[in-house]
Structures are given as C-alpha cells and as structure tokens.
C-alpha cells in the first residue's frame, strides 16, 4: 500500500513560487488501482514522481508497503532505486541500445535477483512479447514499446506500480485496447497501482478509486461510480462528462425538493433547502414531444455538433439566459429550432461539496 501525508511542494515559476502540491494526503489500499485525475498542471505527475523518488517534496511523509521512503520530519529520503517500485513512463523510456529481453531483464540484473531468464520470459509472455525478445526495442511499434515498458515495470515484483500517463502517446483505437488490457493485467496481478491521467474515460474504466485534482489539491476522492453519478463538487461534475451545473433556491417538498433555477422551477427527488448547486448530465436532458409535465420547458437550439452516436446540442431559453448542454440521439435540427425539453426529477442531483 501507499500512504501519503501532508505532501507539499513548491516550484519556482520565474519570479514567483508556485504551490504545486498543497498538503496532499491519501492512501492507496493494497491491491487496488488508484487514479490521480486532473487537468495539466494540477500536480498529479508531481505526486507520482515524489512517490517514485524522482522529485523531492518540500514536506510530508510517504510510506510504501509500510516502510517510510520519505519523511521530511524524520529526514528520510530513499533514492528511487531502493523504493521497490515499478514505473511506466509517459515516453516509455525504452532503452534503445538494448533488446526487448535486455530491457526487461535490467531491473532483475541490477537488483541481483536469481532466475533472471525465467522471470524475464514470464513477464514477456504476460504481455505477449515472448516472440520478439531478441529484437531491439526501438524497432517496435508504440503499442509494443508500451508492453515492454509494462513488462519491465512488473518483472521485479515491485511493491507498487506507478503509471505516468502511459496511454497518452497512443492513438485512440490503440489506447482503448491497451486500456482494457491494462485492466485485465491489473485483475490478474493485483499490484497496488498509482495511475496518473488527464483522461476521464481511462480513469473511469481502470480505477478502483479516483482523486480529482486541481491546482495542487484534491477536490474529491471517490469510486468511479460515485464520482460519475453523485459528484459532490462543481469541478468534478464538470470535469467528468461536462455536466450542466445550475444554481437556485431550493424548497423542501414531500418527495424531494423544488428548486427555482434560471430554467424555471425544477423538481428533484433529492432533499435540499436554501441556495444549492444542482447538476444534470447532458445525456439526461431529453428532447420530448409537445405536452406539459414535470420539469418540461421550451428551448431554442443555439448550436449543434454531430458526434456520431449522439448529437451535442447547446440550448437556451427563448429569451436567452444560461446555456444547457444536451446529448440526444436525434437527426440534424433546423437552425433556431425550438425544442421541448424534459429533465426527469431523479436525474437532478444536488452538489453537496463545499468548494473554493
């Protein structure tokens, strides 16, 4: 497992000091897959590199498998080569002067392990690269290099596996495929894994738990399901899936609440009172036929983007006001088309988290 406490780090950015990490603390339970998700510059890679020992935090504590590898108070800072970690780098960092076999065997060799040949071949077979063991790694395709990097990271049976945006250099189709292979491998090996990405789809499909980050802080930590269905913060709701966030005054009702929003009074099945933020996923904004009903109102289609399976619409009330994003399975709509919209009460969630 990984235990991180009060991790802080500052960088010089020109004249000013930038807080890259602000008192970060979290646990990665043994055998689980933990993801740091956030926009570029949020500090997620810095955490990973601090855990790896490639960067030195200003303050905090890091334990790996129960052993302190960094502690600013106790003056501990183990170099990376003594932290029992495996890591897949963004660039893969495959050594071009070595064969695939030599690359994968390297950790075993420098750690003075036995059974190098058997273990190396086992790792290569695991990623289905046994056949190209004697090829120079630089001659492989991107996807294959990635597998070599993965085999090299796990061959010495590390305490934890660190993945630094390993899929970001692959093209879309390959990324999908590697993503599901990565999940399968994790289910087989059950290595404690810390994964860094800016891609919400990767995070949702791979992780046991996700930490959403911004500006060097954790905004929200939750399981993928919880993060998607019941996020607590505006940032998490919008970063994952680009949800509509509305604010309004809520009044309790017997079966939930009614909220006065710019789109009129909307009913929700959630309990709420006072000033609240609520959110609706774009795919829960439905286009319906004429007729009255709960949470139904008319909107004008301001713009539309065809996305293959769905059409991404930007809607506004006829007299203007804020925009509402809607993803619906509809054909092309005429310009300034007026559509009737329905949001079912059970699809309106209340954001409970406080946020800066």
């Amino acid at each position: 497992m990984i235990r991180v406490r009060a991790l802080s780090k500052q960088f010089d950015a020109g004249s000013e000091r930038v807080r890259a990490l602000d008192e970060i603390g979290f646990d990665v339970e043994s055998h689980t897959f933990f993801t740091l998700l956030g926009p570029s510059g949020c500090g997620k890679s810095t955490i990973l590199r601090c855990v790896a020992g490639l960067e030195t935090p200003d303050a905090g504590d890091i334990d790996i498998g129960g052993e302190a590898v960094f502690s600013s108070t106790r003056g501990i800072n183990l170099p990376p080569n003594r932290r029992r970690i495996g890591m897949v780098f963004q660039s893969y960092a495959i050594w071009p002067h070595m064969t695939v076999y030599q690359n994968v065997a390297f950790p075993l060799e420098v750690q003075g392990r036995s059974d190098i040949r058997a273990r190396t071949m086992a790792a290569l077979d695991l990623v289905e690269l046994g056949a190209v063991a004697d090829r120079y790694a630089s001659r492989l395709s991107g996807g294959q290099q990635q597998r070599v990097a993965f085999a090299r990271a796990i061959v010495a049976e590390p305490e934890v596996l660190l993945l630094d945006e390993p899929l970001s250099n692959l093209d879309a189709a390959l990324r999908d495929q590697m993503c599901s292979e990565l999940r399968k491998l994790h289910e087989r090996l059950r290595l404690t894994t810390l994964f860094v990405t800016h891609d919400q789809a990767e995070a949702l499909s791979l992780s046991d738990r996700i930490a959403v980050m911004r500006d060097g802080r954790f905004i929200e930590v939750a399981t993928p399901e919880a993060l998607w269905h019941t996020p607590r913060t505006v940032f998490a709701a919008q970063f994952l899936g680009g949800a509509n966030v509305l604010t309004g005054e809520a009044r309790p009702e017997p079966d939930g609440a009614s909220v006065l929003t710019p789109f009129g009074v909307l009913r929700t099945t959630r309990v709420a009172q006072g000033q609240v933020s609520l959110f609706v996923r774009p795919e829960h904004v439905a286009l319906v036929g004429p007729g009255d009903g709960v949470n139904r109102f008319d909107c004008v289609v301001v713009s539309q983007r065809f996305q293959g399976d769905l059409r991404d619409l930007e809607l506004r009330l006829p007299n203007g006001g804020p925009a509402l994003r809607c993803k619906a399975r509809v054909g092309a709509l005429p310009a300034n088309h007026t559509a009737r919209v329905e949001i079912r009460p059970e699809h309106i969630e209340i954001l409970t988290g406080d946020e800066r």
Partner: protein
Amino acid sequence: MATHDLALRSPRARWSLDVAPQTWLLVAVVAVVGLLIVPPLAILVYGSVTDTPPGVAPHFTLDTLHYAYARPRIWAALARSALYAAATATLVLVIGGFLAWLIERTDSRMRAFADLFTLAPILMPSVLLISGWILLIGPKSGMINLVARDWFGAAGPVFDIYSFAGMVWVGMLQELPLAFLWLWPAFRAMNPDLEEAARVAGAGFLTTMRRVTLPVLRPTIIGAWIIFFIYSLGALSVPLLLGLPAKIFLYATEIYLAYRRVPSDLNVASAYSLMFLLVTIFSIWVYRRATADAARFVTVTGKAYRPRLVQLGRWQFAATTFGIAVLLLVAGLPLFVLVWNAFLPYPQAPSFASIALLTTKNFAAALDYGPAKRAIVNSLMLGAGAGIVATVLGALIAWLSLRMQSARAWVALLDQLATAPLAIPGMIFGVGLAWLFLLVPAPIYGTRWILLIAYVALHLPFAVRICMSGLAQLHPELEEAAAVAGAGWTTRIVRIVLRLAAPSFVAALLYVALRAFREYSASIFLTAPGTEVFAVLVLDMWEGGNSNILSAYVTMVIALMSVLMVVFGRLGRRLGIHG
C-alpha cells in the same frame, strides 16, 4: 498530444535524484574548471601592475601600464586590428550567409557541398591555408603571379598578399567554412511558414526577404558578426605570416613582439593582453544583449521542416559555379599549390619544363629538418590527450548542467566558466599560462603539460557543446527508468548514459583532437625546444626555411591527417551503430 504537469514543462528542470554525491561532484568540477580558466587570466592583471619578470620579488608600479598605453603606436595598431576584424567579419558573414541560403533554401542542388565545407577547415588548418595562399599570390614566387608573368607577360606581380587587402582576403577565407557552419542551422531551423505567410499575404520575394527573413534571423546574424569579429581580432597567424613581412602591425602582433623581444617583456605583453581581454568581454556583453531577446525569435521548434525551395531557374549554373569557386578558394587551390610545390625544387608556374623538374627530395629534406618529426609526434600526442581530457570534463559538465537543475547557481557558474574560453583569444591564454607557470614552482613550464593545459582549456567549450547536444537528446526518463528499476548512479551512467551518448562523446574527442593538433596562437608562447608542435613549426619554417620543403612537410601531414580521419570516422560510426 501529451499534456505535461508543472514539473514536466521543461525536460531539464526535473532531476533531483539522491542529490548529495552529485552535488559534491558538481562542486569539484566547478573547482577544476575554475582553476583551469581563471588563474591564467588573473595573472595578466598581476603582470600589468608590476615591472619585474616572473621569479623576481614583485615591484608594483603603474609604469608598465603607462609605458604600454602611452605610445600612439599601440592605439594605431588597435584601430587597425578593429578595422581588419570588422572587414573580415562583414565579408565572411555576407558570403557565408549567402552560401548557407543557397544550400538550404534554394534548389541549387549543392547539399553535397555542405559536407565539403565541414571538411575543408579540417583538411586546411589556418596556417596551411595561409601558407597555400602565400604560395599562390606571394609577390615574388606566388604561382598566380608567376603564371601571369610566364604565360601572359605581366610586368610585375598582379596580386600582393603582403598587404592589408591580402590579410583581409586570407582572413576571410580562413573563417568562411566556420561562418557557413554557424549560419546554416539557422536557415535550416527557421520555420518556413513565416516566409510563406508573408508570400500568401502578398509580399514578393525581395519584400519577404527584407521584411521577414532577415529580421527573423537578426539575432543570429548580429551574434555571428560579433563572434567572427572576436575571432579575427584574436587570430595570430595572419598578422604574423602576412602582416609582419608587410610591416602592417596589428594589435596581436604587438603582443607577440613584446613577448618575443630579447629580453622578453612579459609585463608589457600582459598589459596589452589585458586591453584585449576587455575588448573581448565588451564584445561578449554586446553579443549577449543582442541575442538576449532571442526567445522572441523562436525559429527552432525541433520540428523537421520541409521548406519550399526557391527556384533558381537559369541562376542554377551560376550558383553551382559560385559554390565550386568558394571550395577552390578555401581548400582546393591552396592544397594544389602546396602539393605542387612539394615536388618542385623552387616555386614556378606549371609548365612542361617544370614537370621535368619534379622531385621527391623535399620530403627527405623536410623529415631531416630539425624538430620536424618530433613536432608531429608531439602534436598527435597532445591532440589525443587534449581530446580525451576535454571530452571527459566536457561530458561531466554537460551531464551536470542538464541534470542538476536543483543546484541552479552552481550550474550557472559552471556554464559561464566552461564557455568563457570561446571568447578568450588563444594568445592571451598562452601569455597568461606562460606567466603563471613561470611563477608557480611546478615543473610544467617548457614541458608538454603546459600545452595540454592550454589545449584542454581552450577547447573545453566545444567538448561541452558537442556532449551537450548528444545528452540533450536522451530523454531524462531513460535514466529515471533505470533508477526506478533499481540501478544506482554509477550503473545508470555506465549502462545507460555512456552507452547512448557514446557517438557524441567520440565526436567531441575527435573534434577537440583535430583542433588541438593545429593550435598555434597559444602554442607559440608555450613551446620550448623539445616540445615543438606542428603549427608553430610551420610558422618557424616560413621565417627561416625553404617554402618547397615546407610544402613537402605539410603535404605529408595532410596525408597523415586524412588517413587518421578516415580510420577514426569508421571507428566512430561503428560505435554509433546499434541494433
């Protein structure tokens, strides 16, 4: 496109692995480089404010400075030097820039020439180029003048190399390949979209050149002009070989004469050198100012551009002729005249009669000439030694400055120290080193060691730069991956860094060795009987010897160098190939 976190923004600002041992190494390297560079320059100040020779109890006085700078003669020499350097730098830049443009941005099909320009200065070190041109247009026995007399009946010499124009001419040819190599990458890296955007906006070819191309390249051009100004100012071979016989005294000549005077006046030589150093430092300051906002002119993005080539059309032939002519001037003709003279008993124009006179006696005579053989052995040894030492030091410096961003102040200091010799004229360094080791009670003065020190210090910036370009291509993650895999610092350096950057280290070694082999402007102050080096010996031979024996001597050396170059080139390429 991959996104980068704060920490990843620049691949340089990333490494802080077990800092302690490397910090210690960094400080040690700073100390070594500092000791190499600073004392020989600092001693010049000491020499200028005393009037006692080394080894005598110093007598501090301002008389030396007064004596040195009170005479109008020295100021006239300085003005003449500045004029010479400005003329040379301007010419070399215009012609070199035009050549770079022709090769990189037009369809002149002269790309093959680019390699030849790289080779030319290696085959034709400065002293040999000057020797060749003396044999071509020397007033008495220059081949072109002889041809004019014998074939066309000219009454007197058509050209006289012993003139200010002659000096500028040879000085310009001597730096032309370098100027080309300096400017070529700029044309290469410049984003052609900038020019194409201007063309699309409606600008014609000349307007684009004037409003976009030249302004974008402005920092490069100004920077190059200053560098070549400094080089020309500090060059010693042209003032000695051409200026001295013509009684045209440049500032460099005055330093040399003060040193060579009997008894040698090191104090005055130091005082003169000090002024030279100040001029150089000032020029560097201007250079920094001119290129400081170079970031504004981001032309290099690491992207491989495929620029649209300018169609030369009917100028194609003229361009090729121009390229060939330049090659002939910087290497072909001087090489030919040296080899031709090597086989002749005395200089003469090519004719059927002269073919009958061809002889190989000169070669035997050259090898018999006092220290001829010894000088070659010395130069080869010193070249190899300087290459090895400078490369080891340069590779360390490059690695430390790329990977030790956590100790920024030390790295900046190291960078300043290691690049300083680029701006220090060799002769000033030579004077300083001579002083230093006459003072320091170590058995270094008059031995090969003092030459080795000079060569290492003077060529360190090149070694650093070549190693740096190799190391910069190594993604830091390659080393980090080894660290994570469990490898310690030594293992990482030996098994990853050394292996991957080996080709650039070999290149640095060869480059420094070649430059050290023909170094003359520091050597001239540091050689002693027994430690003669090749380039200085050639200068000596011009003073007392026979130009045909000299030709035979340098022909042999050129042949030897060519063979060595081919052998090491093969070796280097084999090292560079893997997988």
